């Protein structure tokens, strides 16, 4: 079976608008590939500027891919006309991090959820029925329909945003940090809702997050991004059980465990330095400046993804020498 979403060598480069750097390019996404089967969850993991959100925006057509190919259900959707893109919006939807910014404060909950239905040309009656169904589906009381977002808590607002995203029965849902802005005691409610919806509606999730404990719990596979490229990708068990890329290992080590004894006794890898700029990245390995295991070759040769032997693929010349790949 063909994957629902198939991304090959995706590139999103922006020209830098600065007079002191003529011709400079921001390589936000620089050769990302992955396949996502129907009903499964792939997590895009990484820190700010790694290209995880830009990848999602390119899939949705919110930014233009400058290279590579995106296929949805077997069809090339890399470059679509506005009309074609619009016809596709029912099939793929996105939920953003901050539900307060995603809802029009002057529209009632019912009006917000009905908007995509109205645009799709449904009758008032159809809309009313579907809105009631969706409000119930995401676990909100029916009485909320007439309220304004201001009367709702953050978690309730995120439920509304999810209901609106589900309105046209999409097949792919892109979840961009869906619980990061919520209070800790509310996050598990929303994660439970997302898992339940996926099971019941056979949804496919592209789950963007910097929170690795959440990713491990909810995803089937993960791609770890660094500076617009994939450092390592594969099944969750391989990535978390035996990380092969030094960046994956450092990321895992950097999550503080909610257990003082375990957290204080574990060996920590603390990376030196900063996240580098994606403006004209160096020719070799993007991770080189912060890498604890770099060798001389890494400055010249860009590593490509190769099987690591543990189930993941990894882009590291030290772990998987180019000759062996």
């Amino acid at each position: 079976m063909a994957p629902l979403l198939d991304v090959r060598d995706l590139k999103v480069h922006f020209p830098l608008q600065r007079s002191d750097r003529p011709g400079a390019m921001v390589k936000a996404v620089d050769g990302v590939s992955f396949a996502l089967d129907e009903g499964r969850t792939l997590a895009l993991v990484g820190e700010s500027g790694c290209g995880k959100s830009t990848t999602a925006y390119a899939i949705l057509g919110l930014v233009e891919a400058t290279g590579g190919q995106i296929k949805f259900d077997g069809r090339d959707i890399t470059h679509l006309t506005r009309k074609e893109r619009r016809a596709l919006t029912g099939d793929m939807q996105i939920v953003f991090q901050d539900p307060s910014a995603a809802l029009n404060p002057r529209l009632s909950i019912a009006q917000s959820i009905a908007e995509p239905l109205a645009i799709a040309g449904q009758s008032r009656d159809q809309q009313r029925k579907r809105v009631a169904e969706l409000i119930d589906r995401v676990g909100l009381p029916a009485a909320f329909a007439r309220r304004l977002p201001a009367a709702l808590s953050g978690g309730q607002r995120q439920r509304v945003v999810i209901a609106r995203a589900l309105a046209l029965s999409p097949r792919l849902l892109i979840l961009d940090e869906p619980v990061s802005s919520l209070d800790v005691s509310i996050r598990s409610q929303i994660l439970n809702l997302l898992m339940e919806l996926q099971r019941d509606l056979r949804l496919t999730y592209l789950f963007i997050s910097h929170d690795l404990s959440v990713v491990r719990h909810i995803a089937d596979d993960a791609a770890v991004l660094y500076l617009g490229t994939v450092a390592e990708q594969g099944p969750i068990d391989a990535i978390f059980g035996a990380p092969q890329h030094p960046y994956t290992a450092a990321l895992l080590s950097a999550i503080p465990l909610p257990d003082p004894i375990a957290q204080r006794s574990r060996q920590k890898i603390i990376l030196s330095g900063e996240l580098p700029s994606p403006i004209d990245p160096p020719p070799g390995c993007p991770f080189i400046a912060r890498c604890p295991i770099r060798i001389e070759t890494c400055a010249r040769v860009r590593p490509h993804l190769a099987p690591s032997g543990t189930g993941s693929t990894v882009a590291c010349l030290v772990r998987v020498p180019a000759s062996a790949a």
Partner: protein
Amino acid sequence: MASGPVLDIADLSIAIHGNAIVDRVALSIGSRQVVALVGESGSGKSLTALSILKLLPDVAEIAGGRVSVNGVELSSLSDADLATVRGNDVAVIFQEPIASLNPLMHVGAQIAEALRLHRNVSADAARDQAIAMMAKVGIPDAPRRAAQFPFELSGGMCQRIMIAAALICRPALLIADEPTTALDVTIQAQILELMRTLRDEAGTAIMLITHDMGVVADIADQVYVMYGGRIAESGPVQVIFAEPRHPYTRLLLATIPRLEGVRKTQLKAIEGSVPLAGHWPSGCRFRSRCPLADQVCEQTPPLQAVGDDHFSACWHADRVAGIV
């Protein structure tokens, strides 16, 4: 320095429009101690911290209680004396370093300014000390960086600048309000490591305000869990994690997905929403979301000892272990 606590908060209440948003909070921090104040939005943790330096927003007023730093009660101080305490004895860093820095001033000068305000040093000496402090908090190439503006630095670097400015006068207490929440995890690990070093080397006491139980487990000695403007539970970090005796703490710990847990299972959730500040039920403020709540909880539970240095404000503290 006296051997008493660096910070002692007794019976502190803060009201907004007559509503006790912070209700009779007591807390103390000893020298070299890292104390975590844990809570969600509306828990009153940030207001408690802001009140220490009298930085409360205009609508909020201190309705009762005492705050003492190194044995000196702050309400007795004149504005001029209070200005001496700020930055000198107590310094604060916030979540958004970029918002805390002056965008039009070189970062080095912002660190030096703190020193010039509180110490009688020449401009040259202040600049040299600022650069030395920048190097100490892990800023590479400090002399060049000192002459840059905040926008030229990353978020992690700006937070280091804030820490350098906060520490340049060697305060006895550093208040850190969600200092790593806006930062990436690998940078968070660096900043936590830096705070640990400061505590170990300079003996700085740290009040860490956070919602992240992982950060608490990593660095805190003592934990105060706040809910609805009150202390729900307090105790040594190991005890709070191993044997929480308040349902809120217990549930909060249970909701976090664990790296060793079974994947894709339903996560433990706390019912309902975090009530808006001031919209709590009478009696125990957690009772609208608590699985143990019954009629007794209509009365406000006192914070009572449940173990060595371990306190819980729950009528059913002995049944907490059974709820998850």
